[in-house]
């Protein structure tokens, strides 16, 4: 038994030694804190608690968060949170507010990630495009970051100096500056991680869209369809800031990233180098097709969906041909940028009908079949339901008064135009509906899987339109049209409505005096939210449209309402007020309400807006009073 005793002693000493060896770790105590300032701390999560993720792919499924402008990759802008519901929303009150220190149009969506709210201001004030991080519960300012954009960018931004928001992934906030930079910022500290120049203001390019992060790549597109800019969408590596791919909207296939995987849904969308052939010689180089709107994503099909701006110039006679791929919806592989399909709702666009509006990813039962679709409220006034695997149009119905396009031929996918309204040089065409901003512009709709309705904020405008020849001088506008907009039939200029995409009809409607230029939000509490340009933030019953609550803010709304919850389960609804944008520029910028053709014709329709509101940005955060809150319901 002595051997056993010796072994036990040896084993015993090992047992004693071993824990001691592990007690003093061989690695530094806290590697993130000791990293040198220039080192990339981006890969460390924002916090180390086990419950909270910092990965955007997980955050989009967590309804306590609002981690991207459109809420989730499908762009539903729907939240399952129901502490606030149709029965108690009348009690909603201001929890806290924050002034962004800027005037001009406030289009950005606030983000809320793991206890912090992030907002960004437009190009205005002493610190243009400033980013703020705020405590979700009490609105304490945690940090702010001011980039250094070029003031000359203000001279090439067509439709107010706006930004539509930020993006978030893995402890980093992503910002687009007006003058064309993509920037990564540490979400905890506000320190700059990298900045990459993507666009050139001397070409007339700006960036106004909210970036979207997919699989480690920040997707950023340019603006400038009114400046003869050639449109593109770029993917930037979120760790390094290096450009991974860039897909142009016009030009040869190898630059538009059309290859073997591509198949257009109709014959006229298949062929070699259509981005060149559907233009007069060289005109594709100044062809527009910019990417300034929304990007949605289907992780199962691994496809991103986005639309492109009008082709340049507005005077269509200077660009005979279909002008691919302006006013086009693309489906692309996010890893490589290669196109899967493209569909162009407005070939050879005549009236500045960009097609950058959201493509909401939904599965709908149509004719007893479950279909994978996109719902796309067209700028041209038609609500498109598109098969998102092929790009084929399933249905297209006018959702507002349209006389420029008679119908959409479902066999060819092409619109049937009203030839009487075709602009021709020097002739004033009157009463074109919808006007250039369309029946709906960028302001995003929301989809409720509960009610199965799409909540659509939009305008109701018609216009006079007169074209002229324009010479292209880089860095200056390339438009060639005199425009004069005004209220559509009935005299009202805006509407907030619920649309049934399967029944293909409007279910209820609220008419407004001014265009409803804010985004929409809808929740499981069966409440839909939107803001008006004359300073009202409204909550309505998602089923009936009955107005349940409203709040008078400091300035008109053109921003995006969001909802999220704090760590104690309190549900908040937030939206930035601050009028401006293309529609509100007459109230926020130095534009004369007596000259109708100002602001690319929008002054004509909005000349009385300065009598209702002027600019001034505030983040408004609402919650129920403490004694009215119910316990948060189980998910």
């Amino acid at each position, binding site marked *: 038994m002595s051997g056993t005793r010796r072994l036990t002693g040896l084993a015993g000493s090992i047992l004693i030694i071993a824990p001691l060896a592990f007690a003093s770790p061989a690695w530094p105590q806290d590697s993130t804190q000791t990293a040198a300032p220039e080192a990339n701390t981006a890969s460390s999560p924002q916090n180390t608690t086990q419950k909270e993720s910092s990965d955007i792919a997980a955050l989009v499924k967590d309804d306590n968060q609002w981690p991207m402008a459109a809420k989730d990759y499908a762009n539903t802008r729907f939240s399952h949170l129901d502490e606030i519901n149709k029965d108690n929303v009348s009690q909603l009150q201001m929890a806290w507010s924050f002034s962004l220190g800027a005037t001009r149009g406030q289009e950005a969506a606030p983000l809320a990630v793991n206890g912090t709210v992030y907002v960004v201001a437009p190009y205005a004030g002493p610190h243009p495009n400033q980013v703020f991080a705020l405590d979700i519960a009490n609105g304490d300012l945690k940090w702010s970051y001011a980039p250094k954009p070029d003031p000359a960018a203000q001279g090439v931004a067509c439709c107010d100096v706006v930004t539509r928001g930020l993006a978030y992934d893995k402890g980093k906030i992503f910002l687009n500056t007006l003058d064309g930079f993509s920037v990564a910022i540490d979400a905890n500290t506000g320190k700059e991680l990298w900045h990459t120049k993507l666009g050139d203001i001397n070409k007339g390019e700006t960036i106004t869209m909210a970036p979207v992060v997919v699989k480690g790549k920040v997707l950023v597109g340019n603006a400038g369809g009114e400046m003869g800019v050639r449109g593109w969408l770029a993917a930037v590596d979120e760790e390094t800031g290096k450009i991974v791919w860039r897909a142009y909207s016009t030009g040869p296939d190898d630059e538009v990233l059309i290859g073997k995987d591509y198949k257009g849904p109709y014959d006229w969308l298949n062929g070699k180098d259509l981005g060149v052939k559907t233009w007069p010689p*060289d005109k594709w180089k100044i062809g527009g097709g910019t990417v300034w709107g929304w990007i949605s994503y289907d992780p199962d099909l691994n496809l991103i969906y986005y639309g492109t701006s009008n082709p340049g110039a507005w005077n269509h006679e200077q660009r005979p041909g279909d002008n691919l791929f302006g006013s086009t919806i693309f489906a692309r592989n996010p890893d490589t940028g290669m196109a899967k399909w493209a569909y162009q709702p407005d070939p050879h666009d005549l009236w500045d009908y960009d097609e950058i509006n959201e493509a909401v990813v939904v599965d709908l039962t149509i004719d007893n079949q479950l279909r994978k679709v996109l719902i796309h409220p067209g700028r041209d006034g038609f609500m498109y339901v598109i098969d998102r695997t092929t790009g084929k149009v399933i249905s297209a119905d006018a959702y507002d008064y349209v006389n420029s396009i008679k119908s959409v031929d479902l066999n060819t996918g092409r619109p049937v135009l009203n030839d009487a309204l075709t602009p021709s040089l020097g002739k004033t065409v009157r009463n074109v509906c919808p006007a250039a901003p369309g029946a709906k512009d960028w302001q995003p709709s929301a989809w409720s899987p509960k009610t199965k309705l799409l909540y659509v904020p939009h305008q109701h405008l018609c216009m006079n339109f007169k074209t002229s020849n324009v010479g*292209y001088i880089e860095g200056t506008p390339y438009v060639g049209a005199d425009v004069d907009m005004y209220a559509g039939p009935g005299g009202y200029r805006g509407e907030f409505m619920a649309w049934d995409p399967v029944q293909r009809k409007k279910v209820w409607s609220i008419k407004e005096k001014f265009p409803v230029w804010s985004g929409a939000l809808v929740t499981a509490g069966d409440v839909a939210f939107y803001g008006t340009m004359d300073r009202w933030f409204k909550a309505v019953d998602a089923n009936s449209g009955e107005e349940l609550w409203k709040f008078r803010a400091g300035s008109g709304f053109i921003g995006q309402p969001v909802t999220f919850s704090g760590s104690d389960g309190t549900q908040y609804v937030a939206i930035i007020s601050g009028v401006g944008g293309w529609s509100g520029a007459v109230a926020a910028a130095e534009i004369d309400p007596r000259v109708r053709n100002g602001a690319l014709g929008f002054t004509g329709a909005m000349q009385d807006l300065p009598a209702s509101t002027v600019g001034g940005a505030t983040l408004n955060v609402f919650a129920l009073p403490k004694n009215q809150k119910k316990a948060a319901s189980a998910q």
Partner: protein
Amino acid sequence: MKYLSLLMAVALLGLPSISKAEQADRGPQIYMQSRCFACHGQLGTGGFGPTLAGDRILAIKKFVIAQILIGRGKMPEFGSRLSDDEVAAVAQYVRNNWGNHYGPVTASDVASVRELMKKASDEAAKAESPQQQ
């Protein structure tokens, strides 16, 4: 920037002709530096001046050269600012881009037009002088 075309013109008068490849690059450069784009637009889109993209009158080589050399109406003359090489380069550029395919222009083409115009100018002056012979 505005001194450059004048300086280039002065510096390059009398130098041997440049190669075709060099000439191809210089055309767009001269179009921008001499401010042709201000009136004729980039990509020949026009504006204050006529559209050059798809303008079939550009087929007439001597007409294009003469126009650049002496101007006409609101178009200024460039004969005193640009060398034969430079006129040839920019004339070739506008005649062979944006849908135009009208062939090359050489410095000797330009020189011969200058000579032709000088002869015409001399004869016009003679015709106006009091001496009849």
